[in-house]
């Protein structure tokens, strides 16, 4: 990772050294219209872009560095928040007219769509928008940037190859095995927005989801609020297997932690995408455009792919792309479409009703 970054830096330094004039003015990226230069100029005048994101600062570091090499005159103020804090801060700050994020980049797909629906997003057609799959953008306001499959995550030392479930039905069946009683973990949809989103999408995608939920309840599932807490417990052997974890995190962790294994279910695999939008009241709208465009540019996408977040663009090749996963798993990939459908469960009564049903299935009061 480090080496690659150093290589890239060296390459860029050499490129800049060869063309010293480039240093003075950042160039229009290949394939963008020439008129893009005016956006770059205006952005350079603005001088910075404020990003509120749910993506780990550590994961975003290569993106920020690369962006700054492209546009040395624009400072990236990157705020790493959880999705609720992000939403809270943004609407409070906007209401106060206090200046808030220029770009919101969050994995809470429903909240991002809600912001756009409530008129907080700037309408902007990114030059690369047509390279995104249709499901991954909405109204020229919200753009999907990643392709993150939802996985079963298990402890490789304690779960035998024969036990590892391949489908949701396998998973439900595994719950009857006494070995897994009290050793299964998943998101708590009451406390975690992502957890709720996944569970509610499950119930749409899977006709026997409620049986699975009952099985989870029967196995005394341990509910957590964060994927890190779940993975920590799976890795330590306190839990053996986890349901509905973000595959991207599991892949990253599996690289340095031999205990972590993951599997993408072959009957259907939900896919979520980190959504980016530009705030309508943004103080640096041009710099915001550059950041958003950068996220879905080939360069940004390959950096995201390198961080195991997977490229969502349809024209990208390699193992860390949605296209590749689609080829391997065929029709099983079920991306959650970006759009008004995500608003259903932000309705208070619908949501409470769903939670009630969930708790009843788990047989918890």
């Amino acid at each position, binding site marked *: 990772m480090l080496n690659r970054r150093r290589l890239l830096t060296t390459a860029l330094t050499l490129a800049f050294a060869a063309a010293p004039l480039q240093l003075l003015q950042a160039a229009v990226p290949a394939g963008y219209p020439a008129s893009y230069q005016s956006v770059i100029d205006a952005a350079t005048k603005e001088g910075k872009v404020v990003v509120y994101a*749910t993506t*780990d*600062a*550590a994961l975003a*570091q290569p993106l920020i560095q690369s962006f700054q090499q492209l546009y040395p005159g624009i400072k990236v*103020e*990157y*705020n*790493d*928040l*959880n999705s*609720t*804090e992000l*939403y*809270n*801060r943004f*609407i*409070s700050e906007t*209401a*106060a007219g*206090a*200046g808030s994020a220029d770009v919101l980049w969050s994995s809470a797909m*429903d*909240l991002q769509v*809600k912001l756009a629906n409530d008129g907080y997003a700037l309408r902007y057609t990114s030059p690369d928008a047509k390279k995104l799959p249709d499901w991954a953008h909405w109204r020229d306001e919200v753009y999907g940037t990643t392709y993150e499959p939802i996985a079963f995550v298990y402890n490789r*030392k*304690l779960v035998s190859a024969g036990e590892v479930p391949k489908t949701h039905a396998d998973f439900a069946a595994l719950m009857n095995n006494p070995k897994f009683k009290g050793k299964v*973990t998943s998101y*708590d949809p*009451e*406390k*975690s*927005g992502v957890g*709720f989103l996944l569970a509610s999408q499950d119930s749409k995608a899977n006709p026997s989801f409620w049986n699975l939920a009952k099985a989870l309840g029967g196995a005394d599932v*341990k*509910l*957590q*609020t*964060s994927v*890190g*807490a*779940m*993975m*920590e*417990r799976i*890795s*330590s*052997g*306190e839990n053996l297997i986890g349901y509905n974890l973000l595959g991207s995190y599991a892949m990253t962790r599996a690289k*340095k*932690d*031999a*205990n972590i294994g993951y599997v993408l279910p072959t009957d259907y695999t939900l896919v979520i995408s980190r959504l980016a939008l530009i705030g309508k009241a943004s103080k640096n709208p041009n710099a915001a455009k550059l950041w958003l465009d950068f996220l879905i540019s080939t360069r940004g996408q390959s950096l995201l792919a390198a961080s195991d977040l997977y490229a969502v663009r349809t024209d990208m090749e390699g193992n860390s792309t949605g296209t590749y996963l689609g080829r391997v798993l065929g029709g099983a990939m079920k991306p959650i479409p970006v759009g008004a459908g995500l608003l259903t*469960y*932000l309705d*208070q009564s619908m*949501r*409470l009703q769903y939670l009630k049903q969930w708790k009843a299935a788990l047989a*918890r*009061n």
Partner: protein
Amino acid sequence: MNALARLGGTRIAVVLLAALAVFLPIGLVFWQSALSGPFFFPNHEYGWAAYQFIFDDPDFWMAAKNSLMIAVGMIVIALPLGAALAFLLSRTDLPGRRWIEVLVLIPVFVSPFVLGFGYVVATGPVGFYSLMWQSWFGSVPWNIYSLPSIAIIAGLTHVPHVYLYSSAALKNLGSDVEEAARVTGAGPLRVARSISLPMVAPSLLYSGVLVFFLGFEIFGLPLILGDPEGHLVLATYLYKLTNKLGLPSYHLMAAVAVCIIAVTFPLVLLQRHLLKTANRYIAVKGKATRQRLMPLGRWRWMALALVGGWLFVTVVVPLSGITLRAFVTNWGLGVQWSEAFTLQHFRDLAEQPGVIRAIFNTILIGVIGGGLAVACYTALGLVAHRRSDILTRCIDYMVLIPRAVPGLLAGLAFLWVFLFIPGLKELRSSLFSVWLAYAVVWLAYGMRLVSSALLQVAPELEESARTLGASRTRVNLEITLPLIRFGLLASWLLVFMIFEREYSTGVYLLTPGTEVIGSMLVSQWAAGAVDLVAVLSLTNVLLVGTGIAIALKLGVKLHD
């Protein structure tokens, strides 16, 4: 006009400023609880819908019941242990007293968040102590995530609070009464039970109320230990409401906060009342003879074992857990420690500018912010010093109020204050916002430190200056302040350590430039960066440790 003049312009200004800092955020919370939506949206309506919602929610009642159980459990555990500890350390010839005294205070200054996480790694179902136990005895008899466990851990970690107040009272008590009992043949246990404890009963009662009250506020431990089995307490229920409806439900959160205040504020008042009584008792001092230590005799080693056992469970276990986690890639069943060992987490830490800033800011807010806070507390303290007019009474009650609000919501309220009060916007993304929130949240604690320093100044000195014609300001500047400079230094160090450990208040004020370790721990835990949480926790403990070491080097007494 005359009356106002008598109170003094500066004094009024100081009190007004403090009142603003205290009442603005709390007023916002109360107002928000009576609305149907965020107060800053135009379409909200007044009403009791928020209260109706939480009172209809079975989770709320479960959380309230759990909070009550934990608070009661804490009293049952912390009170007798704290009292025993105070008796052993200040009245007997327990071996190694001096060292133990330092260690005893550690749980006060380490974030409960760090403690909780440490307990999971050390004594969770596959924690390394648990696995060790299992290999020796076959099965692990404890479940760290159960409600009784949470209550026990909370109780054990609050022993120092009781210890602080009872040992202060014991030290103010002459040893002649105990001496008399011992001469007539009573053993140490009998002396403690029949003589020493009844004498410090008011202080015990006071600290009992304190512990009970802290039990209602407790957040970090149940957040980490209660989650897996779904045990909520009021503060974690409040936290849960940030998500339950998918959208922020400020009115619901505010309503829960008001409920917590409704329980804790009467307790704070009761405490204040008890403190007065306690101080009256202390006036019944023995003669100012040197205190003689009671020989423990054959109880000596048993007492040491008791203290050592408590220290092991409360300090060694969680801190060894957190330390271990910082140096390994993974842990748990079947892990070879030698293979899992790594320094990578520390290298990763060094590569993140935000984290480095957080460490730097944490030191800054502790050292400079702590100093500034003590300066403010002192200004307030001087306003009340040797006076018993309306301003003094105002301060007496006012400083107690922020104590009753959960830190997380206090932080959110301060975010609102900085956003919506004109003229403060620019300060929001500076460390000032975090500092102000900290200073207000810890007002009661800081005021106690400063006023106990002020009380040690003999009135004659100030009076003689006054009779020679010195103004109050002059007396303060030339007599009182120089005399308490050492006390203020001690307060500064204690406030430094409290600021280092604070964690929930800063969460909503976190921006680039205002990161502090405490709030970063909460947000990184939520984001799942466990490696980083471990390394940052360890850094935090080291910072607090450095603070304690400096304090001791300077000869500061860690308590009065």
